[in-house]
């Protein structure tokens, strides 16, 4: 059984009907990126993130963000050691492999900014001293898009740091019924077992790095970026970083499919999740009803840009 099946099977013991989301989480993890899980309350965002992390078997910590949080609550700080009469650095919860940043948009800008450094540089700076974070390091953040009170919406530059935004819609009728039935008993993420060893994980991540991206595929990616920047319905197109992220995801997906090369299909499969949250709609296009969802615009661009065949 390949890694994808093993992880999905384990997660399914707790979370039902989220195979697509689990697959995308795995792709992001292997691509070395961070994920923003977006959905209304009660669609299993946190349980999914916890279950996934347990499957991977790496160190995991969770922070529940609140408006009164300080950066040191996350990154840690220096505390006076009476015995040695010196200041020792006490690591905060950010020092982990997978950090679940629950309700990230409730954190004030200073905390978001500290998280930004961790996400981008894989390090934190406290009182002028830089501390490296353990690798792999992944942030799985959750947010409720319907919330308007007591929240600090993530700025574009922070959104751009997320490799993917995964939208979690309500489950369909059959899944909802199965979910209610399942929850008549206990739903416990502690029963989930790790399905991959550290050595196997390192080997897989090394394999992803070796997946080939041909010149034609790179040209295809560049054309998609150009199209997004020229779309009149968007005031902000895909950044170069977005396209690099899309390439990393396509490589991870190709690896999971058992290939050592990327196809246009790999790019199309993850493009909406990788690009959608980074594009900014032009307000005049929104006002006249030409656009309301950047994800749809990404899909349209993919329909008209000819892939290398």
């Amino acid at each position, binding site marked *: 059984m390949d890694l994808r099946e093993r992880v999905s099977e384990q997660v399914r013991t707790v979370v039902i009907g989220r195979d697509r989301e689990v697959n995308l989480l795995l792709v992001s993890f292997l691509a070395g990126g961070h994920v923003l899980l977006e959905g209304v309350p009660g669609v299993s965002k946190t349980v999914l993130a916890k279950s996934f992390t347990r499957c991977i078997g790496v160190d995991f910590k969770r922070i529940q963000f609140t408006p009164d949080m300080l950066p040191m609550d996350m990154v840690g700080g220096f505390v006076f050691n009476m015995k040695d009469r010196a200041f020792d650095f006490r690591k905060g919860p950010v020092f982990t492999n997978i950090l679940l940043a629950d309700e990230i948009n409730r954190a004030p800008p200073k905390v978001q900014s500290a998280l930004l450094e961790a996400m981008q540089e894989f390090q934190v700076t406290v009182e002028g001293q830089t501390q490296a974070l353990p690798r792999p390091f992944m942030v799985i953040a959750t947010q409720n898009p319907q919330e308007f009170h007591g929240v600090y919406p993530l700025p574009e530059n922070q959104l751009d740091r997320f490799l993917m935004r995964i939208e979690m819609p309500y489950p369909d009728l059959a899944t909802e019924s199965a979910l209610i039935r399942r929850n008549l008993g206990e739903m416990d993420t502690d029963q989930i077992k790790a399905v991959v060893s550290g050595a196997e994980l390192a080997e897989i991540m090394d394999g992803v790095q070796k997946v080939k991206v041909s010149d034609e595929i790179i040209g295809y990616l560049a054309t998609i970026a150009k199209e997004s920047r020229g779309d009149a319905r968007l005031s902000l197109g895909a950044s170069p970083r977005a396209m690099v992220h899309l390439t990393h995801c396509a490589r991870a997906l190709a690896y999971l499919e058992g290939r050592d090369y990327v196809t*246009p299909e790999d790019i199309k499969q993850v493009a909406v999740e990788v690009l959608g949250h980074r594009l900014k709609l032009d307000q005049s296009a929104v006002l006249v009803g030409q656009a309301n969802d950047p994800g749809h615009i990404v899909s349209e661009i993919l329909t008209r840009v000819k892939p*290398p065949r």
Partner: protein
Amino acid sequence: MAVLAAAAVGVLALRGAGARKVDTLAEAFSVLERSMAAGAPWLPQGSTWGEAFERLKGAGVEADWSKMGETLKAYEAFRYGGRPDPVEGKEEVTGLAMKIQRGVLGHGPKRKSV
């Protein structure tokens, strides 16, 4: 007279596509690309081969789709993975190209009733 001339051109075009000899799978896919542009213009410009095959299948074009899937994998390994250009499966691909061309000259792809 004009109808007869058009029919003659059609028959000649069909024979041309059928008689066209290809040595490799890459050449076969190139023939298919041309016949798709002419015979299935309704396919979105951004379709990958996999998506195009799915749509053709949905439109009722008959082929051994499972074998076509295997052939496509071999072609993609050449096209994007730098493997040698395979020769296996080129007949199926050119056969499909002919069928698509016939679709235009004959009744066209089947349409699903709404």
